[in-house]
């Protein structure tokens, strides 16, 4: 496979760049528009750094009304729009194209309302994921989805990619925790979908918008569910000599009717990388490790852990380490959540995000290892075991063009494997540009055309994030 293609830039748009910038300058305050080369460079890629494109300009509106004016202007001028939260997408969801503007939400980052009685927060879309939990944490509440990038990533981006996180095994992903959204359409209509109630009326617009990768409109505000935190939470480390034992242990825990808050899997290489970085006290002499977190009162946690430990012992667990303090728990999670960053210090990597039925995890792990070995590449596995969402990190050297190609090819083979095993291409990172051309392995043309017709009800001209999600060939209308 060659490099991921972008649509051919429209030369008539490129030629009109100055007029387009002037049009945007009439809508936005000077500090809300970036048109100089150095400024635009900061927006040319996201966390899929192997690809970059320089946008025409960057618009940073301060309100839904300004977003609406930018949208109408772009629609009328025939300019493409690439929405951007914090630019942490691993699938290239926020990478621009030369004939597009970036519409960034960084100037819309206020928490508008916190209502603990009705258990919701209303925020602008540029608010970071973690800021919400930090704002309500002192009162014992939290916002459940917790992607590893939660310190930086925004709610707007989370909605675009339907982000998950380690704790979604029990609490669900973004779509299960979103009550309302303000959506600005390409026509400049400002729509309030849902609200502060648990159910929204009409068609499930929130469900449709969540995970639509900025292709239906720009989400400028969100109303999210707040949950009351349990009395306490405690992670436990289980070390195994064999990867199969660890994955079968996961299935056995679920089979026993226990849904822990989180169940994370790390293989030997991932453990080593994370331990070297975070000094979390991970066992270095095991092939696989599970972080299982339980929550509740002290006795409740002790009982649950006793049940889980018994299952782990039946599956040949070698080391069990219970966290004995809040600091230790934080260390354990810091190690896991820094997996991507820590790996990035060791080597360049691409992170796959395929999901398989949990019963297929042992096979998926084994064959992922075989695929990467066949390309002569190393792979570190760190993922959400409870829901089958794999995250193989395929290591390579970005300065070695041949190796980079091999890494991409291996990644695509792993995703094909996920689909073959009954799974899907992406569990929580989104399709972006990265998996776009593999969509036909998971969907038939009829499936994809139905999705594209729904898309067209919002954006018939393919103006919104058009390089993403759907294969460039065979697009309709």
């Amino acid at each position, binding site marked *: 496979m060659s490099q991921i293609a972008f649509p051919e830039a429209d030369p008539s748009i490129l030629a009109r760049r100055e007029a387009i910038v002037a049009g945007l300058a009439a809508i936005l305050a000077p500090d809300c528009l970036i048109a100089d080369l150095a400024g635009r460079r900061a927006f040319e890629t996201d966390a899929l750094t192997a690809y970059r494109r320089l946008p025409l300009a960057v618009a940073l509106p301060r309100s839904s009304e300004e977003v609406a004016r930018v949208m109408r202007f772009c629609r009328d001028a025939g300019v493409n729009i690439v929405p951007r939260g914090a630019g942490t997408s691993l699938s290239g969801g926020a990478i621009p194209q030369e004939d597009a503007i970036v519409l960034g939400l960084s100037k819309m980052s206020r928490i508008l309302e916190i209502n603990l009685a009705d258990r919701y927060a209303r925020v602008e879309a540029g608010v970071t994921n973690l800021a919400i939990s930090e704002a309500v944490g002192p009162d014992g509440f939290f916002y459940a989805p917790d992607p590893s990038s939660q310190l930086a990533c925004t709610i707007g981006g989370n909605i675009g990619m339907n982000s998950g996180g380690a704790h979604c095994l029990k609490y669900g992903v973004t779509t299960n925790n979103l009550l309302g959204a303000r959506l600005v359409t390409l026509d400049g209509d400002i729509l309030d979908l849902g*609200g502060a109630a648990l159910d929204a009326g*009409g068609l*499930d617009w929130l469900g449709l918008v969540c995970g639509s990768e900025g*292709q239906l409109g720009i989400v400028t505000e969100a109303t999210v569910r707040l949950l009351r935190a349990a009395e306490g939470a405690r992670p436990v480390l289980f070390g195994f000599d064999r990867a199969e034992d660890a994955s079968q242990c996961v299935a056995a825990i679920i089979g026993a009717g226990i849904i822990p808050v989180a169940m994370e899997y790390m293989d030997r290489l991932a453990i080593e990388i994370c331990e070297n970085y975070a000094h979390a006290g991970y066992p270095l002499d095991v092939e696989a490790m599970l972080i299982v977190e339980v929550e509740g009162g002290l006795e409740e946690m002790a009982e649950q852990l006793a049940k889980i430990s018994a299952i782990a012992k039946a599956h040949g667990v070698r080391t069990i380490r219970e966290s004995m303090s809040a600091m230790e728990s934080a260390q354990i999670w810091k190690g896991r959540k820094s997996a991507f960053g820590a790996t990035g210090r060791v080597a360049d990597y691409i992170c796959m995000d395929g999901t398989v039925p949990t019963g297929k995890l042992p096979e998926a792990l084994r064959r992922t290892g075989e695929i990467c070995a066949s390309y002569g590449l190393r792979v570190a596995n760190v993922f959400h075991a*409870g*829901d089958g969402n794999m995250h193989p990190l395929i290591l390579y050297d970005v300065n070695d063009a041949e190796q980079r190609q091999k890494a991409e090819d291996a990644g695509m083979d792993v995703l094909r494997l996920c689909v073959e095993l*009954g799974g899907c291409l992406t569990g929580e990172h989104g399709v972006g540009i990265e998996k776009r051309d593999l969509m036909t392995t998971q969907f*038939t043309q009829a499936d994809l055309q139905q999705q594209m017709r729904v898309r067209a009800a919002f954006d018939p001209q393919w103006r919104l994030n058009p390089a993403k999600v759907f294969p460039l060939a065979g697009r309709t209308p």
Partner: protein
Amino acid sequence: MSAPEETAYAPADEGEAAEIVRAAHQRRAKLDIVGGGARGGLGRPREGRERLATRRLAGIVFHEPAEMTLRARAGTPLAAIEAALAPHGQMLPFEPIDHRALYGGAGEPTVGGLVATNASGPRRISAGAARDSLIGLRLVNGRGESVEAGGRVMKNVTGLDLVKLVCGAHGTLGLIAEATFKLLPRPEAEATVVIRRLEDERAIAAMTRALGSPFGVSGAAAIGSGMGREFPRVFLRLEGFADSVDYRAERLIALLADMGAKHALRGEESQRIWRAVRDVEFLAEPRERAIWRVSLPPSKGARFVAALGERALSHCYDWGGGLVWLASDPTVEAARAVRLALAPLGGHATLTRAPDALRARVDVFEPMPPALARLTRGVKASFDPDGLINAGRMYAGV
């Protein structure tokens, strides 16, 4: 039923269903989907003359107990699903309402109807609605094409989430042929903390305190004894392993002692309460009354009911006050009053039970602003360009 059943098709498989839709497409004939007939009173009255029945599209396609997933065809009775899950100690998480209590007992709830109506119940506050457990489906759209959406895995953001769009669309986007759910372990034990004699605002305050506690409340309802004019009783449910339930029940009772919490019901006694809450048994009689389902921010539930004054004939609260079930006279004036009372509070109301004539005259679902109505028509057309399937079931002309 508004129209005589002139023609009825009962395809044996999805391919045959697609052929029937294609043929109807050629003739521009409108088709109305019928499942087990247990929820036929939901939505606007049927317009089509021809019926497409799911009864032969039945059976469980797979149940993977270790993966906690199940796929079944649309016509599969819910009872068959429950029977298959019971030996494995599993359940559908969302506790779907059985509408037969409200509609008078006819029919058999099926998978298709449950998905089409996003039927959920008291556990929605902790485990989500049907749409949250639905991870995949197969659909025959109005062009007679088979479309697959989602899959069989717990996490999936591959392409647009048509699964959620179709769930709760009342069949207007096509015939649901198969649905895949994620499951939960059936809790080992449950307990219901009961508080008697609190007026509405205090009842909601008690539920708010409980839902803001760390004890994992999985049901929070307030039911008036008799016809809702008396002080409600508040029910708060805890589920899980027996020891954990005991511990949390004790803590919850202590937390609400000042409001009158004293004891908890268990086992069958507790289960009976939640079946009645789920199925709105309290409002089923008298039969001629219109029944509204109103979703709004919990703290506004009592205000909404109070604003209706005498128009609110009886009511009860679920979801900690965020779901109001309300009985009114079956009149246009009462319908107008419900929408007026709700407008300043934010939320939406569905006319769940009323005679066909009234459901044809007033909005059954919350009316939409023009831009959203345009999108609704656009999305409908993207599945069903000639408006053949379940036409007008949600909105007139859509």
